[in-house]
């Protein structure tokens, strides 16, 4: 027995010493992967930029009741992206978009013609805007350490408001009538792409292009419409669509490696 141990021990010792570093390396890799899974990067972005409405929402044709008279505006939002894997993550967005009123000349001229008056004055009441609360998926691709491309698709709740306006015909105050602003909630979606540049492991900037869609059913109240003449909108059920072009300041929370 003693002779056997004397022969085997050096071999066992050699095997242990020879494979020791290997085991140690494997342990290290396993631990690191585990850390990645437990603490994935979380990106928060402050986003702002232009909103350009499209489709009927942006039309300014007085005779077309689908016209939304929405002009280019701005949007401001807060995004959060939680990376589940190296490429895939869950994205959330809370944003506010406000639109200018365009085509007021057309609107006023339309009422001038409809009521055969010499002039009409339009005063916009409230504004056209949306609040979006969206969640969805994010696919992220890194290039050269500093540059990344993010593809996002999100859906969720959209609260929309269509601006109202007051129309005064000539200088007769008693002829003044109103189309009240209208509000509705609906489901919307947004898809987009962003090019992100990381200044360091935490701070970056991104240029985003997003297409958005929602289709609220807005009931519109009209006040003092004494006569059945001129453009009269009692309901607006046209999609709110457009493109956002934004800049984002991005902050990444992640464990130092």
């Amino acid at each position, binding site marked *: 027995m003693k002779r056997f141990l004397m022969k085997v021990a050096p071999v066992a010792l050699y095997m242990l010493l020879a494979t020791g570093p290997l085991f140690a390396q494997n342990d290290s890799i396993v631990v690191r992967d585990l850390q990645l899974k437990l603490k994935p990067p979380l990106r928060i972005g402050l986003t702002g930029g232009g909103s350009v409405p499209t489709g009927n929402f942006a039309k300014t044709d007085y005779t077309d009741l689908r016209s939304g008279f929405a002009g280019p505006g701005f949007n401001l939002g807060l995004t959060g992206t939680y990376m589940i894997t190296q490429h895939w993550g869950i994205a959330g967005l809370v944003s506010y978009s406000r639109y200018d009123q365009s085509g007021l000349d057309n609107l006023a001229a339309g009422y*001038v013609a409809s009521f055969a008056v010499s002039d009409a004055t339009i005063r916009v009441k409230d504004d056209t805007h949306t609040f979006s609360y969206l969640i969805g998926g994010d696919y992220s691709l890194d290039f050269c350490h500093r540059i990344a491309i993010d593809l996002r698709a999100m859906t969720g709740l959209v609260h929309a408001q269509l601006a109202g306006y007051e129309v005064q015909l000539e200088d*007769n105050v*008693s002829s003044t009538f109103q189309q009240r602003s209208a509000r509705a909630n609906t489901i919307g979606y947004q898809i987009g792409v962003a090019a992100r540049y990381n200044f360091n492991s935490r701070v970056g900037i991104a240029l985003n292009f997003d297409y958005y869609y929602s289709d609220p059913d807005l009931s519109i109240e009209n006040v003092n419409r004494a*006569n059945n003449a001129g453009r009269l909108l009692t309901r607006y059920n046209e999609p709110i669509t457009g493109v956002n072009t934004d800049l984002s300041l991005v902050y990444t929370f992640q464990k130092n490696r």
Partner: protein
Amino acid sequence: MKSRSILLMATGMMMLFFMGACSKAEKNVTEQPDNELLTTVELKAVNTTDATDTPSAKWASIPGGSLDTSHAILNLKKNASYNVSVMFLDESKTPASDLTSEIRARGNYHLVCFNVSGGLTLAVSPTDHDSNSPALPIGLSDLLTTGAASAGRLEVILHHQPNVKTGDCAPGSIDADVNFTVNIN
């Protein structure tokens, strides 16, 4: 340093964009380029019981010309009823333009009113109505009911009542106001 500059530039651009978007005008006034002239008012009557009895009268004031009231006389039979059409024309151009159909199409904010004076025994009631809800009279088509023999004046006023038409003559502005002499014999 370079990163900070880019960040500052981006923030500045975003702020400028928001400021620009917030400062849009909310008021707009548009004026109508031209109005058609309303130079002539005609009354064409048809006796409801005698189709051959068709008196008419015409009041005209052409710009650049003189006021012609020589035909502004309507002769009606006593104790009779007449269906009357009130017509508005623009005779400042050739051929003359009949504005009556246009006024009828805009009947929801136009109203023809009548005032009888001088002891005239005449009642006027409109027979046409607009598409307001409830429907209101327009007054381009009327029923004239005469009483005993008399003479006096019939004032015809075209009211323009954009979004203030209620059936009353008072609101709005006046597009035409003319007087006819009426003889009932």
